């Protein structure tokens, strides 16, 4: 019981602090990519010490706390208040089964670093709970009684449903390979074989990463709140702490997506020749594993942020094309290949991991090459309004 409480407090405190600092990191990375410096003035309050702007989250939090919490007269009050709570709670509840390290030696036995250890359907729980977040978005958009909020909510429902499928396909490959639904079990298998699943499941990783980005509604998939089209999307009518809860929920989603990528594909807390693989560990190794895990998560988060500034936002038809015509087929290819592998060589991963990885990469390159030859992805985004050939573009010339 005490272990549970201690772990919950550490995780909740850590997560909320981490999210506050993710906001700062996001702004910093955005600034750096645009050749700016980013927020660097706020340091320790009431002093002139700046600390490279590390005090910014305190300032942001205070600003949100003291803002007027205005509720427009036309909203459905009950649902309007409930929506940010739903999204925030769902985003936090996901972390109950997510391991944030491996084990720590407490009282002579290994205490797993999960709030709810031993949940056999871990990954299913994660997806069940994180799907509830869609309700928060739709409730908020619907209760706001505003066409822009509503459009944002409708877009989010379409987008999130479309990308649940590639997400699931990506996970199915991992589940087939590891034979478990437990997140800590998946990490342990990767640690013991020494082969991270990214090496064995390149296509699955690609599909999962793109779908996770879309599920977290990060740019270039942020059609549900794109400022240029929908004012603010589903949270147009929100202010103050409710708005802050939406923002926190979004960053928690990004963190969830990053943690899942690390757990499923990047070996969790394992690093070759550094962390070892067993469960009999001292405090040093245990903490090292926690550090390795979160270092990987931060790298993935950084990747998300770099991707954000590399792509323009998709048009809605491009978004749907990508989900149904690219990601679902790729996910199916991956799933079938993995199923064949596990049917005919069930011990391939444990006995010949590197050969398996090589074969899967060859398959991945072959798939992408075949894709390029048969159905160029790029041509799908061009306008189709020529007289004969759909790929013609119109140029106006003065009449002779």
């Amino acid at each position, binding site marked *: 019981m005490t272990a549970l409480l201690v772990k919950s407090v550490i995780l909740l405190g850590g997560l909320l602090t981490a999210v506050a600092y993710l906001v700062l990191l996001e702004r910093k990375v955005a600034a750096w990519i645009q050749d700016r410096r980013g927020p660097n003035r706020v340091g320790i309050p009431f002093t002139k010490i700046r600390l490279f702007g590390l005090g910014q989250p305190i300032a942001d939090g205070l600003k949100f706390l003291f803002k007027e919490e205005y509720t427009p007269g036309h909203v459905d009050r009950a649902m309007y208040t409930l929506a940010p709570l739903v999204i925030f709670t769902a985003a936090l509840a996901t972390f109950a089964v997510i391991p944030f390290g491996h084990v720590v030696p407490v009282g002579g036995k290994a205490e797993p670093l999960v709030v709810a250890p031993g949940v056999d359907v871990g990954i299913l729980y994660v997806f069940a709970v994180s799907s509830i977040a869609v309700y928060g978005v739709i409730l908020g958009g619907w209760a706001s009684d505003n066409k822009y909020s509503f459009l944002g909510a409708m877009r989010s429902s379409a987008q999130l449903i479309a990308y649940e499928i590639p997400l699931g396909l990506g996970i199915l490959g991992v589940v087939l390979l590891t034979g478990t639904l437990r997140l800590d079990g998946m990490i342990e298998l990767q640690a013991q074989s020494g082969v991270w699943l990214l090496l064995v499941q390149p296509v699955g990783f690609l599909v999962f990463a793109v779908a996770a980005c879309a599920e977290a509604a990060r740019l270039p998939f942020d059609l549900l709140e794109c400022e240029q089209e929908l004012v603010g999307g589903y949270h147009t009518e929100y202010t103050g702490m409710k708005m802050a809860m939406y923002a926190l929920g979004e960053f928690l989603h990004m963190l969830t997506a990053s943690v899942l990528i690390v757990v499923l594909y990047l070996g969790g807390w394992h690093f070759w020749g550094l962390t070892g693989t067993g469960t009999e560990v001292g405090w040093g190794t245990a903490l090292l594993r926690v550090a390795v895990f979160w270092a990987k998560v931060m790298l993935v988060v950084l990747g998300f942020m*770099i991707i954000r500034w590399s*792509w323009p936002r998709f048009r809605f038809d491009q978004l749907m094309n990508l989900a149904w015509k690219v990601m679902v087929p790729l996910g199916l290819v991956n799933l079938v290949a993995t199923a064949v592998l596990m049917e005919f060589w069930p011990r391939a991963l444990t006995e010949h991991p590197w050969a398996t990885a090589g074969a899967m990469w060859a398959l991945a390159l072959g798939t992408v090459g075949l894709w390029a030859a048969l159905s160029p992805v790029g041509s799908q985004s061009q306008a189709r309004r020529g007289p004969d050939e759909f790929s013609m*573009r119109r140029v106006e010339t003065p009449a002779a």
Partner: protein
Amino acid sequence: MKPDDPAIRWVKPPELGLTGRMYLPLVLQGVTTTVRHLFSPKVTQEYPEVEPPIGNPLIYRGVHRLNRDEQGRVKCVACFLCATACPAHCIDIVAAESPWPDRDKYPESFVIDELRCIYCGMCEEACPVDAIELTSLYNLTGRSREEMFFDKEKLLSVYDQTKDREPSAMERQQQAAEDQQK
């Protein structure tokens, strides 16, 4: 204009190469650009600590000053040419009989409303004795409107503050003459 209008010429967009059709290599290229900018030198100036370059301070049009002559007196002869030339009517001069033998009048009070001024520099051009000049001080601030009325003493103190960095037109001429004699 309809699609079959003869004035419209239809052209094919360039074909995508193999890398373009595979999509991922171009993705990698784009991410490389982003990462390069992530580590490239930043262009932001840290303003209060780092002052921006202002070009030639002698022709910059910032806060005004009233120049002093060799004896430290105000150089202005209260001819009202600057006040007349001023398109914003921000110069207010009260002339009085000069206590000195070398001129008839001198400004008893000389007030410039720095909030009203548009910093066009026409006062400087109009002045026959090079008494009023615009300095390179650009960060002019105040806590009230009254504080932004610069009187004679304030304008003379601006001269004292800037004379070493920005010699007046007369001082520059004298300097040039001395250099020629050498």
